[in-house]
């Protein structure tokens, strides 16, 4: 992930039918994920995402913001997301500014309930809001 000492490669993964699209913006401290998540190998798929977050948190002291538009997820993806939120929670505990903005399609209210389940136990700002049509 890290090419120079403080230089970092951003992720730009196009979404597929079974994996979400992922874009990172190191300069602005933003990670975006959108779509369905059914990777065959979740560990392999989410590895780079977790590495990017780890590197960002280590290499900078800027705020980190996750913008999520995730719809359906398999169990191992749910676990990966919980791991990611745990990392944010830990960083938040050390005084780092981290936040999650989870957007959902108002036609699919179930995503709201699910995002709400994820939010439980998180003490950092975790906003869930419908996308404006």
């Amino acid at each position: 992930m890290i090419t120079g000492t403080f230089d970092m490669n951003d992720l730009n993964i196009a979404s597929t039918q079974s994996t979400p699209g992922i874009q990172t913006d190191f300069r602005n401290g933003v990670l975006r994920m959108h779509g369905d998540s059914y990777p065959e190998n979740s560990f392999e798929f989410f590895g780079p995402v977790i590495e990017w977050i780890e590197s960002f948190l280590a290499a900078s002291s800027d705020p980190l913001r996750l913008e999520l538009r995730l719809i359906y997820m398999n169990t191992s993806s749910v676990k990966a997301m919980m791991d990611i939120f745990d990392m944010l929670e830990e960083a938040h505990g050390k005084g780092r500014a981290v936040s999650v903005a989870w957007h959902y399609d108002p036609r699919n209210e179930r995503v709201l309930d699910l995002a709400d389940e994820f939010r439980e136990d998180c003490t950092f700002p975790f906003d869930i809001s419908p996308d404006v049509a």
Partner: protein
Amino acid sequence: MALTKSSACLEEAELQALIMRLVDAPEHADNPMREPLLRLVKHCEGQRERLERLVRISDGYHSISRDQRLSLAEQYDKQLRRLEKLARISDRYQNSLRELSEALKDSASHDPLTGLDNRRALTERLREESERATRKHQAYALSILDVDRFKLINDRFGHDIGDKALCAISDAIRGSLREYDACGRWGGEEFLILLPETASEYASQVIERVRAAIAQIRIDVQESALPPITASFGLTLYRPGESFSDTISRADTLLRVAKAQGRNRVIVD
């Protein structure tokens, strides 16, 4: 425990002081027991230090294992809560997927406007009924109906009224059939009716009932009145062994005859 220990220590210290006083007394300077007594006192001191060190080390180990046990219990509880949360979220995803797949299954076989079977479901039913009819040498009756001058309704009153008419027609068809009869939307304003194991004469009566029910539909439209809704029907019997598409084309041809003869009628072969 601490009390006993300290009183024992006190006793030992007093005893040691007494012995030292006696040993140091000038009158005992040549006593042969003086030397062994001094060695015994020194030995006792060493033993006491050993014992204290042993207790300290043992207490240390005890406290380490206690801390480990507490942190393991804490980790275990945390992992358990995590696992429960994972299962809960995962179950919810699974449930919404199941409901989605049921909705998809339903929309794959039903016409969204009228709720009747769609062409795909009808084709499946036709295949089943044709196999059964061939096996049992018992024909089913098949009728195709087309709403008369439906394009005029759409053009003059708009698609909303057109849709309303189609729903009313669906209700009229459904309401005139028996439970085991099949019906569905075959195309735009075309409906298909399948009467299993039904002889020609009785089939004519049923289809005539459907025709009459449709002719009685009244739809309120603001300002102008909607012309009466009617439909034309072609009715035929499945001939065991033939392909059901042959049955359909026969019914279709009869339907064209009904149209040509002035609409709002049933033509049977």
